[in-house]
C-alpha cells in the first residue's frame, strides 16, 4: 500500500503538487491522469524520491520513505519511463540485469531471471539477450524497459507515460501485456498518462490531477458517471461517456439466453466492441462464443440500457 499524505512540492514559490492525499491499494493499478504541467509526473517521482517533497509524507506499507536511502528505495521499486531509457551501450540482457546486479545476486540467478523475463515478454532469450537496444524495434525496446523494471520482482512499479512513443497497435498489445503481468505478479502499479482512454482501460482507480491538485480519485465507472468537476468531465469527453462506460465491462458478464444470427463475438471482448459490431452489422443481437462454443447472445437493447448514465 502506498499512502501519500498531504504532499506538496514547490520550486522557488511555484507550487507543482498542492497538498495531495492519495492511498493506493496493494495489488491494484492506479492511473494518474492529467494534462501536461498538472504535476502528475512530479507526484509519481516523489514515490521513489527522484523528487524530494517540500512538505508531507509518503508511506509504503506503513514505512515513511523519508527514512530510507534513495538508492535503496529505488532498487525496491520498478521504474519504467517513456522512451524506455535503456542503456544504449549495454546489451538487452545486461539492461534487464541492472537492478539484480546492484542488489548483488549471484550470476546464475541473474541469468535465469533475465531469460525468464525475456520469455515472459515474448522475446526469445537466445535471440535477444546479446543484442544492443538500438537493434530492436520501438515495441521491443519498450518491453525490455518494463522487463528491466520488473527484474528484481518489485512490489511496486512506477510507469511514466510508458506507451507514449508507441503506435496504437503496439500500444494496445503492450497494455494487454501489462494487465496480464500485473495479474500474475500482483504488482502495485502507479501509471502516469495524459490519455483518459488508457486510464479507463488499465486503471482499477483513476486519479485526476490539474494544476497540482488532485481533483478526483475513484473507480473508472464512478469517474465516468459522476465527474467531480467540469475539468474531469472534459477529460473524459462528454460525447464519449456511454462508450467509455461500455468499455469497462466484458461481454461474458452480460450474456443472455438465445442465439443471435451471424458471426459470433468472443466472450472476452469488451461491451464496447460488441456494441460497435452490433451497430456496424445492423443486427439486433450477436451470438457469444466461448472456447469455440456459442453460449448465448448480447442484444442491442441490453447494451443501450447499460450505456445509460448509472442512477
Amino acid at each position, binding site marked *: 500500500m502506498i499512502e501519500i499524505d498531504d504532499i506538496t512540492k514547490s520550486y522557488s514559490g511555484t507550487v507543482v503538487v498542492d497538498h495531495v492525499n492519495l492511498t493506493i491499494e496493494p495489488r491494484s493499478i492506479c492511473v494518474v491522469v492529467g494534462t501536461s504541467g498538472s504535476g502528475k509526473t512530479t507526484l509519481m517521482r516523489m514515490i521513489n524520491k527522484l523528487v524530494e517533497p517540500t512538505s508531507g509524507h509518503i508511506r509504503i506499507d506503513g514505512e515513511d520513505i523519508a527514512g530510507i536511502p534513495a538508492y535503496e528505495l529505488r532498487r525496491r521499486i520498478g521504474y519504467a519511463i517513456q522512451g*524506455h*531509457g535503456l*542503456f*544504449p*551501450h549495454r546489451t538487452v540482457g545486461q539492461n534487464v540485469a541492472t537492478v539484480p546486479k546492484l542488489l548483488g545476486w549471484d550470476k546464475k540467478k541473474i541469468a535465469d531471471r533475465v531469460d525468464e523475463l525475456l520469455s515472459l515478454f515474448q522475446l526469445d532469450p537466445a535471440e535477444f539477450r546479446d543484442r544492443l537496444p538500438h537493434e530492436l524495434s520501438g515495441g521491443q525496446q519498450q518491453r525490455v524497459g518494463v522487463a528491466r523494471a520488473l527484474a528484481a520482482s518489485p512490489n511496486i512499479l512506477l510507469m511514466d507515460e510508458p506507451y507514449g512513443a508507441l503506435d496504437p497497435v503496439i500500444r494496445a498489445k503492450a497494455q494487454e501485456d501489462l494487465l496480464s503481468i500485473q495479474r500474475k505478479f500482483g504488482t502495485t502499479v502507479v501509471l502516469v498518462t495524459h490519455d483518459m482512454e488508457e486510464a479507463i482501460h488499465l486503471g482499477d482507480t483513476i486519479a485526476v490531477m490539474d494544476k497540482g491538485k488532485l481533483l478526483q480519485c475513484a473507480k473508472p465507472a464512478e469517474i465516468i458517471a459522476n465527474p467531480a468537476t467540469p475539468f474531469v468531465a472534459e477529460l473524459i469527453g462528454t460525447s464519449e461517456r456511454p462508450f467509455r462506460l461500455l468499455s469497462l465491462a466484458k461481454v461474458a458478464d452480460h450474456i443472455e439466453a438465445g442465439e443471435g444470427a451471424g458471426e459470433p463475438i468472443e466472450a472476452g471482448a469488451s461491451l464496447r466492441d460488441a456494441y460497435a459490431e452490433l451497430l456496424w452489422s445492423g443486427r439486433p443481437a450477436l451470438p457469444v462464443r466461448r472456447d469455440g462454443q456459442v453460449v448465448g447472445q448480447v442484444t442491442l437493447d441490453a447494451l443501450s440500457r447499460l450505456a445509460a448514465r448509472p442512477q
Partner: protein
Amino acid sequence: MKIGNVIRLVALAVLLLLLVSPDLFSGFFGLFTKNNQPAIYNQGNLLDITLNHLTIVLAATVASTVIAVGLAIIVTRPFGAEFLPLSRSLANIGQTFPPVAVLALAVPMLGFGTAPTLVALFLYGLLPIFENTLTGLTNLPPSVTDAAKGMGMTGWQRLIKVELPLALPVILAGIRLSVVISLATATIGSTVAARTLGEVIIAGLLSSNTAFVLQGGLIVGVLAVLIYDALSALERWLMARTGQLGRAAA
C-alpha cells in the same frame, strides 16, 4: 578495402621504411641539398628521435587526460558544481598561453631539456579534453540518466557504468585534438634541448639544408595524420557500438 585505407597503409609503410633505413631515401632528399650537404640527418638516429618525440607527446597527453577528465568529473558532480567557472578559466588560460612563452617561463625553473616541453604540452592539451569531457558528461540522453537514477544506482555507479561509457567517444575526440596539437607543438621543444623531431628541422634551418627541414616536417605531418585517422576510426567504432551514431562528435 577503401582507397583511403590503402593510402594510409602506404603512408605508414613509407614512414616506417624512412625511420628504419633512411639511407634508402638519400637519392630523394639529395634533390633538396646544395654544396654536397648531407641528404639524411646525421646528428642522431631518426628512429630514436621519433620514438622520443612520441613518448613526450604520449606522456603529456596521458597527464592532460587524467587531470582534464578528473576536473570535468568533479565539476559535473553536485559537490563540485561551484568550481565549474573557475576550472573553465584555468583550462582556457592554459590554451591561450603560447607554448613558446610557457617554454621561456619554464626553463628558469626546470632547466633545459624535456621537462619544460612536457609542462607546455601538458598545459596546452588540457582545454580540448576538458571541454569535450564536459560536453560528453552534460549532454547525455535525459531518459537514460533518469533511468539510471530510478534504477537505484548511486552517484559513482552512474558515473562509471553509464555516464563515462556514453561520453567516451566525445572524450576521445578531445584527446585526438590534444594529441595532434601536441605532436606539432613538441617540435618547438627542441629550442630548449628536448630531443624531438624539431631538432631535425632546426638543424636544417641553421645550416640552410632543406632536406633536413623536409624530413622533420614530413615525419611529424604523416604521424599526425595517421594518429588522427586512427583515433577517429576508434571513435566511430565506439559510437556505432553504443548506438549513438546520431549524436554529433564535438
